[in-house]
């Protein structure tokens, strides 16, 4: 009897790609799981699904999980991807380093509390640059800002990795990925900001199923990491308009597959949490100043 | 079946909040088969009185006992439903009326050509006639008419007067009507209530003993002459 796991997935998100691979290769049957996909159209919808009890697993970031824990909702996090935002500029742009962003018009996707944006601010603060006040910041919806950047209305765009990949394919230059500033902020490696999020009690009750689920997704990631033909199969899902974009998606996706031990992830998270708390303030992290100790899910064998 | 009226007062509060006395003491009774006529200066409170008697206004001092009867009413304005045709207006008030009766009514009231017109397509006189048709069609036991013959030409008014007389004679019903025409009052009424200016009270009651059908032109002229001599300022 296969156990059922309900996953909230954004139709255009990378999770949907992996799920397609899982289905195509029958990985779910192999893991003796029945995967129930709750398909949704916007990133925030997953949180509703989890809170409403319509999904067991969704994808979000650990700062949010820690915040929720401090407010009483015992959620847990397991790394899913280290792909993270990047700053894109037009190929011919005079902007060569992040410090050059000073005095420019920078479009920031995801609003004032976007993780990449907070990291960028923290990094530049060390160089004595207060980007928020020293340049023109335009907040907006990610797809809209990507289009605006492409239209030449912005000097630079800090956006989610998939929109950056699309811009890259259009000939934009990757000024810096946020993974590049992590070291400067005290992180030992490329941390996975994004992960599976689920309820602690649910996970405790379904330890074995969770372990099989994680193993299954790793397998799917492995397939996507090694097989190029697999990408042609999922191409329609990505919405990539051309081969170049698909290639950019593929490369960035592969880079983002997390491979570090969970303990390392958690250690880095603890460091970065303090940084984020400092820049993002109360709004982002709530009253807690330290990463909530139970944030990371530790019960996967071999981690 | 009898209408007992013991009103001690009625006043309105206007938009500015000031009190406006309309009726003072009004006491009378009216029996089935009788026609009462209310006669009084413009604005004295006649329509207000009729509305109280019709049970449309309960906000007065005093007491009115009216038997639970079928009411037919002609308001001072036609009050037709603009979105229903002439015929529909009549049939909505009198759902049980049969085709023959409607046809007869429309014939007397010269409405046959307008049966399927909407009220907005009627002249005021036509609309008032529809209101009359509606009140007659319900076959009332209690008929209230607020200036039923205003805005009609004399020939038609004469015929309608006869029609009302026939109706009253054919059924033992109570009838109460307002008019400014002494001639109408004397020809149709059994008891004439003369009201004072606002706040209205009854200043004279004239009871006509002669049966309606038997009143000669001479009787009528006599009564009119006598009433003219009383100092009822408002005839």
């Amino acid at each position, binding site marked *: 009897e296969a156990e059922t796991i309900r996953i909230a997935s954004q139709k255009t998100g990378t999770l949907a790609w992996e799920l397609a691979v899982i289905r195509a290769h029958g990985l779910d049957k192999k893991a003796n799981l029945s995967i129930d996909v709750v398909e949704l159209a916007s990133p925030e919808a997953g949180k509703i699904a989890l809170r409403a009890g319509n999904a067991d697993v969704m994808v979000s970031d650990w700062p949010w999980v820690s915040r929720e824990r401090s407010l009483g909702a015992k959620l847990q996090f397991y790394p899913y991807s280290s792909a993270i935002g990047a700053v894109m500029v037009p190929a011919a742009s005079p902007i060569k380093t992040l410090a050059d962003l000073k005095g420019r018009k920078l479009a920031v996707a995801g609003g004032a509390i976007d993780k990449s944006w907070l990291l960028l601010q923290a990094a530049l603060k060390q160089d004595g640059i207060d980007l928020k006040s020293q340049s023109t910041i335009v907040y907006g919806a990610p797809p809209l800002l990507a289009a605006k950047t492409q239209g030449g209305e912005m000097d630079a765009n800090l956006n989610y990795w998939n929109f950056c990949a699309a811009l890259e394919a259009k000939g934009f230059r990757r000024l810096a990925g946020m993974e590049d500033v992590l070291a400067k902020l005290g992180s030992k490696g490329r941390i996975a900001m994004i992960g599976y999020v689920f309820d602690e009690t649910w996970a405790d009750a379904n330890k074995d199923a969770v372990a099989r689920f994680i193993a299954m997704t790793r397998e799917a990631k492995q397939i996507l990491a090694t097989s190029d033909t697999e990408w042609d199969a999922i191409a329609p899902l990505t919405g990539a308009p051309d081969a170049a974009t698909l290639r950019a998606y593929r490369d960035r996706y592969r880079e983002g597959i997390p491979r570090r031990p969970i303990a390392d992830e958690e250690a880095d998270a603890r460091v970065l949490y303090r940084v984020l708390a400092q820049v993002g303030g109360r709004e982002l992290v709530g009253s807690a100043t330290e990463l909530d100790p139970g944030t990371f899910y530790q019960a996967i064998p071999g981690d | 079946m009898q209408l007992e009226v013991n009103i001690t007062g009625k006043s309105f509060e206007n938009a500015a909040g000031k009190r406006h006395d309309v009726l003072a003491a009004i006491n009378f009774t009216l029996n089935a088969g009788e026609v009462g006529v209310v006669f009084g200066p413009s604005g004295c409170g006649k329509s207000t009185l009729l509305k109280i008697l019709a049970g449309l206004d309960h906000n007065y001092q005093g007491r009115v006992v009216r038997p639970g009867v079928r009411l037919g009413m002609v308001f001072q304005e036609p009050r037709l439903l603009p979105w229903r045709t002439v015929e529909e207006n009549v049939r909505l008030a009198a759902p049980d009326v049969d085709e023959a009766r409607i046809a007869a009514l429309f014939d007397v009231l010269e409405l046959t050509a307008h049966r399927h017109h909407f009220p907005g397509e009627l002249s005021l006189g036509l609309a008032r006639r529809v209101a009359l048709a509606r009140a007659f069609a*319900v076959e009332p036991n209690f008929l209230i008419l607020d200036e039923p013959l205003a805005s009609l030409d004399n020939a038609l008014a004469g015929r309608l007067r006869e029609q009302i007389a026939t109706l009253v004679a054919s059924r033992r019903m109570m009838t109460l009507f307002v008019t400014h025409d002494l001639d109408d009052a004397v020809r149709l009424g059994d008891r004439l209530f003369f009201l004072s200016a606002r706040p209205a009270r009854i200043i004279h009651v004239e009871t006509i003993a002669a049966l309606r059908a038997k009143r000669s032109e001479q009787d009528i002229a006599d009564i009119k002459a006598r009433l003219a001599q009383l100092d009822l300022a408002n005839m």
Partner: protein
Amino acid sequence: MLRLVSFALFIATWWIASLLIGDAKLPPPPVVLAAMLTEAKSGALFVNLGATLARVALAFTLAMALGSAIGYLMGRMPLANRLGDPWLILLLNLPALVVIVLAYIWAGLTEVAAIAAIAINKLPTAVVTLREGARALDPALDEMATAFAFPPARTFRHVILPQLAPYIAAAARSGLSLVWKIVLVAELLGRPNGVGFEIGVAFQLFDIPLLLAYSLSFAAVVLVIETLLVQPFETRLSRWRLRAA
């Protein structure tokens, strides 16, 4: 006839605008039509349109019926109005997003929650409009109905309803458009299909032709319903109004 001309004019304006502004900013009609056809061929257009229309129909009916009844009561009874008014203003001014999120959290990501949330968003605007209508009712006709002892049902149908008709028409038209705006948010946040879902996807992919294809398909459906059903009905109902001389 004139409607066709007007429609042609619209297409022409759009086309010219897209030529002036550039394809990227406003795709020309054929591109959108192509997107529409692709979706139609795959059947997705009809599935999504059907799902959304069903939700719209249900939520709209619910909200109009309930909203009209409440609005009528509030317009006629000052006490009901004074009691209900603060609630009404509150409900009017709750963001759609908040209502939808709360509904989903309480009732799960279900069809019932979505429809209830949409109806709750629309409800107060129907109340507000019908309340004005009920306040403007003619007391003279009411008296007439009382005098002739109209039973309540007859009074309602023949005396009250025709007076409320223009208010109902206004509430229905603007209400349909509101429901349609909100169903999209509801679908975006917690339904696995429908026009709102597809528009969300199209927005994430920034596929403007697809965005327009879905939006205009719905508008076209409403246009057809209006032309073939609502307007002939309205004309019949308002025959009694005098045409200007």
